[in-house]
Every structure is written in C-alpha cells, then in structure tokens.
C-alpha cells in the first residue's frame, strides 16, 4: 500500500472533519435558503449570504484536503479492506443524502409557490453547484461519522 501519498493530505481528527462537514452543510444549504428571501436585496441579507457561502466553500475545501477525503477518493489499491468497506458505507449514506436533497428540491419546485418560494434559474444554478460540492465532500464527512460510532462501540 502506498502510504506516502497520504502525507500530502491534512491529517485532521474525525471530530474536526465532522465539524467541517456540519459547517459546510449549514453554510452552503443555509445560504441557498437565504437566496429565496433576497429579492429585496437588503444589505444585511447580502452580507449574511456572503459569509455563509464563504464558510461553506472554505469548509468544503479544507474537508476535501483531509486524510479522510483521501480514503473517500483513493484508488482501491491504495486503501486496505477495512477502509474500502467503510468507504462503501459512506458512499451509500451520500447517495441517500443526495436523494433526500433532490426530493426536497422537487417538492419546492412543485409546491414552493404556495408558500412564496419561487425557484428561478439563478437559484437552480446555485442548487446544482451546492449539490456538486456536497457529492464530492460528503463521503469524507460520513467516514468521520462512521469512525465516531466505531469509537463509541469500542468503549
């Protein structure tokens, strides 16, 4: 197994990765929700939106460079059988998360106007960008969560 490749990734603890994952989800998806209320272009909303986007993209970037992200994206020959099994579970969790997000998006597109949520093209572009980032980074986040449950079972 080539372990040298791992050293170029940031060796963050699972706890830090979980924190970054939550920050990414809140930042990216919270800012998308804010976009619905930005028609009036209030400065406070614009600044909050920008801060949330920065938090989300920053957290996603750091998460992508973590060693758990290496496990999530490494070729099969570079990780061992335990890591491979955990990665499979993490990808299954990611598929479920993405499925849920797409279901919610479908509901908002179909019935959102009843509660004043109008889906425009810029919102759809933002949605796709967030979906892409979440798909790339979520496996590492779920790997960190999986390690937490293993640690708790071992105690």
């Amino acid at each position, binding site marked *: *197994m080539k*372990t040298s490749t791992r050293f170029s990734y940031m060796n963050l603890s699972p706890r830090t990765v979980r924190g970054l994952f939550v920050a990414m989800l809140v930042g990216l998806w919270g800012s998308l929700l804010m976009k619905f209320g930005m028609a009036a272009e209030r400065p406070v909303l614009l600044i909050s939106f920008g801060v949330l986007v920065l938090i989300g993209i920053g957290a996603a970037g750091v998460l992508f460079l973590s060693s758990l992200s290496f496990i999530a994206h490494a070729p099969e020959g570079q*990780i*061992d*059988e*335990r*890591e491979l099994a955990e990665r499979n579970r993490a990808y299954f969790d990611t598929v479920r998360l993405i499925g849920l997000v797409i279901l919610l998006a479908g509901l908002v597109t179909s019935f959102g106007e009843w509660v004043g949520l109008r889906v425009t093209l810029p919102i759809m572009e933002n949605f796709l960008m967030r979906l892409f980032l979440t798909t790339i980074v979520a496996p590492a986040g779920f790997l960190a969560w999986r390690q937490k449950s*293993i640690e708790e*079972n*071992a105690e």
Partner: protein
Amino acid sequence: MVHNRIALFRTERGLSRKELADLIDLNPQTIGFLERGSYSPSVECALRLANVFNLSVDDLFSLKPFPALSTQLSVHKKS
C-alpha cells in the same frame, strides 16, 4: 463477533502495529481496529495474519472469547 489474540502475539514477537501492518499490507490503524474487535477481517487477511505468526487461524481467531492467560496457565500446571 470474532475474538482474536492479535495484540498478544504481536507484543510477544515485539512487533509494533506499523511493522505488523507493513508485513500484511494493511493500514496501521486497521491493526488497532482488529485488536479492539471493531473490525472482523476477511478470510485472506486472517490467513495472512496467521501466516505472519506461524499459527493456524483457529489459534488467532475464535467465535468464543479466549480464556485469560492466568486460567490457561493454571490448567496447564494442573495437567
């Protein structure tokens, strides 16, 4: 759950987790998971581990908890 005596035999042979991991092409972290019983190895991995220690898989892994060393010693003395 699969019980094992990897930690016992590893310590007996003076191997670190990293050294053992290198011998059987695993991540050192996985050795820790195996020793704690948090991960059950594949047949191939179990055979490779047994091979490193020159033991049978039965000596290293069991579906029942292994008796404590003190118990085994007292049984051995009596016999």
